[in-house]
């Protein structure tokens, strides 16, 4: 009878009974505290079930409110009673009605026999604590909290702010060093008696009764006063979600719980029949005796918390629709947008596809068709090539495309002739790599057979659109990687510039541009620009295109 349990129960009485009986049957006395909020009739019926069980006793009831002193009070009462009734108890294990032993209790007892003087309690100084949800660490001990955090959150927060502003502070009693930790502990009789029989207990209790969440600090601080050997960890496995609520364990967690090698876990779903059946059956095959290692299952739960808190970048769904500024990344992966080179080089698209790999689409935002790679009519995820569907939500068209092709490099062309609604999004997105040769759109125009007036009007329209795009790319808040040249600039060393961009996309590698695309004949281009000028239009975005371009350099060959 060296190990006794204090069980705090407020619901799931059948499960609490099952666990209490299991402990008692294994020679571990139990003192149960039933929440004062439980109706008297329910309580009496529950208590009556243990009439024949001398090792299971009850203690006076306290109405327990979450995060308040009442929980410590209940623990004190039950612990005092357990120590008084069962003088052989050397270690007291604090558990709740939703705790379940994961290993035979005999193993826990022999583990404690090996550490007779050790107090197992997570006890961390306040400046080391990182897990609090409310952001109150040291202030838990220095402010006053008369208002309920759950019921009157605004009053709670307002009063905290007021105290901060006025610089109000409570003084911490002598000899108390604030520590925080999990409320589930296993302490020695000696430590507990020192705490409960301390000469200044009433003063200390009065102080802690006004501390915020004392059940995570009362014993955690006071053990530092009396304990000889503290193992600052809880023997109870419990995991918390991003709101600070404990994760609940279900039947399907069984392998995970077994792997943890922990002695006790909380909290268990009361209807997890298989967990209760398995873990309360001491006749099951004995496992190896390993040190408790909750870290083994941390990864699983921290991943769940991350999904819950940060979500998957680039996903927009019924579950995740971030407000502007909360996206944590607009898209799920890098992609490339080429604006202009496809007008300059012959058969650029297939060449680029060979060079870059992944999927190289045409003009995805062309006003008349969505030019998916390979002329597909539906892309991954059944993304349609309907122009109306694309233009209905142009940004989500792109985020959907990228999401559904995760892991595959996507590239597409974009120009001033395309539907421009997506432009600001491209500029804002750090995942976008943009290569822009301004004025390149004029290259096909200069060999057009259309009447000159029509060509001029088209040139004016495209230039306006491009200037707006360039402006968007130069405005504050642009996060895309932009490589921008005027046409005049670009044609001085086109292949080097192209090479530079592609190297940035695929990373510098041994693969050089062995086979180069061929550039269109631009010998008549300067004349075309002059003709536009003479016609009353002012071509700007091409830069200062050299008059002698064609004759000086000749045509570029790869």
């Amino acid at each position, binding site marked *: 009878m060296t190990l006794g349990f204090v069980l705090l129960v407020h619901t799931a009485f059948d499960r609490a009974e099952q666990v209490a009986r299991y402990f008692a049957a294994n020679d571990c006395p139990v003192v149960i505290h039933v929440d004062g909020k439980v109706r008297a009739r329910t309580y009496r019926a529950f208590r009556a079930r243990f009439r024949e069980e001398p090792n299971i006793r009850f203690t006076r009831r306290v109405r327990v409110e979450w995060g308040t002193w009442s929980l410590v009070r209940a623990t004190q009462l039950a612990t005092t009673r357990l120590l008084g009734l069962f003088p052989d108890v050397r270690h007291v294990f604090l558990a709740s009605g939703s705790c379940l032993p994961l290993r035979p209790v005999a193993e826990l007892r022999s583990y404690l026999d090996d550490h007779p003087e050790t107090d197992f309690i997570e006890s961390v100084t306040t400046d080391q604590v990182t897990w609090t949800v409310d952001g109150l660490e040291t202030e838990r001990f220095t402010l006053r909290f008369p208002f309920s955090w759950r019921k009157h959150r605004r009053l709670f927060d307002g009063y905290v702010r007021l105290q901060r502003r006025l610089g109000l502070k409570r003084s911490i009693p002598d000899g108390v060093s604030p520590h925080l930790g999990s409320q589930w502990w296993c302490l020695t009789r000696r430590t507990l008696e020192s705490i409960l029989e301390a000469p200044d207990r009433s003063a200390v209790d009065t102080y802690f009764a006004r501390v915020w969440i004392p059940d995570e600090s009362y014993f955690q601080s006071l053990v530092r006063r009396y304990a000889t050997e503290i193992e600052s960890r809880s023997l109870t496995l419990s995991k918390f979600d991003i*709101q600070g609520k404990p994760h609940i364990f279900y039947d399907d967690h069984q392998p995970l719980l077994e792997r943890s090698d922990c002695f006790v876990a909380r909290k268990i779903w009361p209807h997890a029949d298989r967990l209760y059946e398995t873990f309360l059956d001491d006749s099951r095959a004995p496992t190896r005796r390993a040190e408790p290692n909750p870290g083994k299952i941390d990864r699983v739960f921290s991943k769940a918390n991350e999904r819950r*808190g940060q979500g998957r970048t680039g996903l927009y769904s019924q*579950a*995740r629709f971030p407000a502007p500024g909360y996206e944590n990344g607009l898209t799920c992966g890098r992609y490339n947008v080429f604006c202009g080179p496809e007008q300059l080089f012959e058969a650029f698209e297939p060449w680029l596809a060979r060079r870059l790999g992944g999927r190289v689409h045409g003009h995805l935002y062309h006003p008349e068709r969505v030019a998916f790679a390979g002329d597909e009519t539906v892309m991954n*995820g*059944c993304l349609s090539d*309907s122009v109306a*569907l694309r233009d209905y939500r142009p940004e989500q068209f792109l985020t959907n495309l990228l999401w559904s092709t995760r892991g595959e490099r996507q590239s597409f062309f974009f120009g001033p002739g395309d539907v421009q609604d997506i432009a600001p999004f491209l500029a804002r997105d750090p995942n976008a790599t943009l290569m822009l040769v301004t004025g390149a759109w004029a290259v096909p125009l200069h060999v057009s057979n259309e009447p000159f007036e029509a060509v001029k009007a088209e040139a004016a329209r495209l230039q306006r659109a491009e200037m707006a795009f360039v402006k968007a790319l130069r405005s504050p808040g642009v996060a895309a990687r932009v490589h921008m040249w005027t046409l005049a600039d670009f044609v001085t060393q086109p292949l080097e510039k192209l090479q530079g961009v592609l190297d940035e996309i695929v990373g510098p590698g041994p693969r050089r541009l062995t086979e180069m695309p061929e550039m269109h004949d631009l010998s008549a281009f300067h004349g075309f620009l002059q003709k536009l000028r003479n016609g009353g239009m002012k071509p700007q975005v091409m830069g200062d295109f050299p008059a002698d371009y064609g004759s000086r350099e000749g045509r570029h060959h790869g």
Partner: protein
Amino acid sequence: MPGVDDLWAAYKLRWRRRRLLIRSLSKRGQLRALVDRTGALPRRAILCFATVRNEMGRLPAFLAHHRALGVGHFLVVDNGSDDGTAAYLAAQEDISVWTTQGSYKSSRFGVDWLTVLMMRHGHGRWCLTLDADELFVYAHHDRRDLRALTGWLDHVGRRSMGALMLDMYPRGPLGEVTDAVAPLRQLPYFDAGNYVMVRQPKLQNLWVQGGPRARAFFHADPRRAPTLSKVPLVRWNRRYAYVSSTHSLLPRHLNHVYDRRGGEAPTGVLLHTKFLPEILPKSAEEKARRQHFENSTLYEGYYDALTADPILWTEASTRYEGWRQLEGLGLLSRGGWD
């Protein structure tokens, strides 16, 4: 601090909610109890509400699926079936049935009738409001029942949970009859990644559209494509009211089933088995009855397209494998429930 505009909007919505409740109450005379077994419902029972019409083809699978999930009782309004649906339902121990000959459309597509029943029986309970062609799935649904899910939602302080309606379709033409019996075997395919959405500022709900119907029938006018976002699971209060089908409800905080700060909220999927072969005759009937859309004439083209026996399947369609697959695709989220 909420602005004055917002307070004013909240005030107007409160009256809108009251009008909806009064409107529903005024329709209670249209309901006639065929079998009412709600007398001894346990306090914690999870209830499932549905309005049905001629659903003999789907009901066995619908009931089996949701019974397995732990629905405690089904409360069904039968709107003038003539294929034995009412009698079939009435014969089952865990179903209460009401019948009505009233107009589906003028009862807000059955919502008014259900609101009356939810007011009476749903108060304080978790209520799952579905159509007979919807199968509710969520993370872990194969191993954790609705009791576990709703217990957890209570634990983390959520009163409602959203779901995406996922249109399921066959490999061949819609009208083609196959040997398969289970709806999901007949309709194993879905669109995995063409959903678009905006937040509706007034009701603060998310308005999701897309899927095969948007792609095949509404590509010329995407705004009219069917709404796919729903809030089917709610811990009900007699003061709550669904606004349009189960897409949104009041008070509007119940529509906050998606995360706006970048995280992922717990979200399920409603596998929508609308496109069983009977869709062809049904579409012709619905077009004639004009009971399914607010402005029915606008949807004649939609019914015509359906009756023409189209193929929704494409090379890019995805075959349904289960909730983990849906989670991987981002259509469903466990929302921290691990």
